[in-house]
């Protein structure tokens, strides 16, 4: 009996051989898929430029290709947009470790929202179970699986991309496939990434993750509201990371992890707005940042009551 994975590989091989045949026969647009794509779309992707160099028409073409490919691959109608950053907004996050109970609701909401692979370790948020009285990350355990949480004598420290203001991952990228957006989000152009994983090595927070396989998820669970620099379906062999849910936050909505958290430990907002909740936290609560001494200026604070 074949496993699901080997079926997937066979299907991929069939698609590849079929597309090769179609290419030989003259490259019909509606013919069999070329890696989940038509020949024309495959050529369009091949000549696609870096996100920051594409004109508006080229971006529109790229978005159309993404939607068509998702339709062929998963049979789902998704909308992929390129939402620009808002003026006068720099996003920041604050997390109350007195309130976090280690439920991991944020993790599962993030996986669903961002169309992540269901079987692998591709999870943007890692909830660390820490012994009380220490911030020593060596003592952290993120595979914790007790009957109930919180466990006595422990606290919980969710770690995700800190959206550093001086991001070492961006400096490490040899092809500039990742950069800091004006609203403070470090994004990845998945089509420009070459998968060298230097950025993963450079990141001090273990916040970047590599697609060892094409993200596999049931079509009915695909989130159709996607963004080019956000949660669009990713190819195999690229690095991805938390992007503060660009598809939501750039439209004024809360990120999925904040929405999912039942404890209210997560506070998201605009660092440039003096009346925002996050500014109140930064001004009035005891806050700290992880590995602040590295000078990467993370925009993710932890605080206690």
């Amino acid at each position: 009996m074949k496993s699901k994975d080997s079926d997937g590989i066979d299907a991929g091989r069939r698609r590849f051989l079929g597309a090769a045949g179609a290419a030989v026969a003259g490259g019909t647009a509606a013919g069999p898929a070329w890696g989940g794509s038509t020949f024309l779309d495959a050529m369009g992707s091949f000549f696609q430029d870096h996100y920051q160099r594409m004109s508006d028409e080229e971006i529109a073409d790229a978005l159309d290709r993404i939607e068509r490919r998702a339709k062929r691959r998963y049979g789902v109608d998704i909308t992929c947009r390129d939402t620009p950053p808002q003026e006068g907004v720099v996003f920041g996050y604050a997390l109350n470790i007195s309130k976090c109970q280690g439920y991991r609701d944020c993790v599962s909401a993030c996986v669903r929202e961002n169309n992540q692979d269901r079987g692998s370790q591709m999870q943007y948020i890692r909830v660390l179970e820490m012994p009380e009285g220490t911030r020593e990350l060596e003592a952290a355990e993120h595979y914790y699986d007790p009957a109930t949480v919180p466990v006595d004598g422990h606290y919980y420290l969710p770690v995700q991309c800190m959206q550093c203001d001086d991001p070492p991952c961006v400096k490490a990228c040899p092809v500039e496939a990742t950069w800091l957006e004006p609203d403070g989000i470090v994004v990845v152009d998945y089509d420009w990434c070459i998968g060298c994983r230097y950025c993963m090595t450079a990141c001090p927070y273990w916040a970047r993750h590599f697609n060892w396989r094409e993200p596999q998820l049931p079509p009915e669970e695909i989130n159709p509201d996607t963004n080019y620099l956000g949660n669009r379906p990713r190819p195999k062999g690229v690095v991805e990371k938390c992007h503060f849910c660009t598809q939501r936050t750039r439209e004024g909505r809360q990120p999925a992890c904040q929405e999912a958290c039942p404890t209210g430990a997560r506070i998201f907002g605009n660092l440039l707005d003096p009346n925002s909740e996050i500014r109140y936290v930064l001004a009035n609560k005891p806050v700290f940042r992880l590995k602040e001494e590295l000078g990467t200026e993370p925009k993710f604070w932890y605080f206690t009551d």
Partner: protein
Amino acid sequence: MGYPRGSRGRPGASVTGACTLIAVFTFASLAAAELPAPEDGHRPLRGNPVTAAPDPAPPPPFDGYVNAPAFEVVPRRGELKFFPCAACHDQMAPNPERRKLFSPHPAALDHGDGRFWCLDCHAAEGRNELHTLAGERVSFDRADRVCAQCHYTPHRDWAFGAHGKRVADWQGDRRIYGCAHCHDPHAPAVRPRVPEPPPPVRAGLARPELEEHHEVEGQ
């Protein structure tokens, strides 16, 4: 006047220091000239201005914190199972005696170590509302006014956004959950809960200590 200790070989520094000292003394003498300087250096207590007498009128009812950003509390009355309470209680005379209640009321009040009972928060007259200790009527939608009488620090944090949860949008109108959306007023302690599953361990990378742990458990 000697050089300050530790300023060896830097005469320029000591000159600057001397100038600063002179400036400070000049300023201090000017300031002293304005106030009548008592001989022993202390002003008698009676010399201090008298503060205004306390206002005998009751303080105005609490109306939010100064400079707190505007917010709207997500209404809760629609979620209450047996609301309106007056549907039954209008048929009964209020009984102020402390006693154990029966269904549909909660059997136990696990809040405040037995200090309270129902009518400390629920209004005896006009059951569809709560009341504060000062007798102010409070809607169930703004139950936070009742909670804040004791839990003032979390309430302040909540009003400013460091406690509680903002709903839907980070931008635009600020809608937040009220206290009772998350905390059951009759049993406010947060109960332990089953966590979501841990991240899967990639094939071939199973953590040895976890395996050993399970083997020991299996034996």
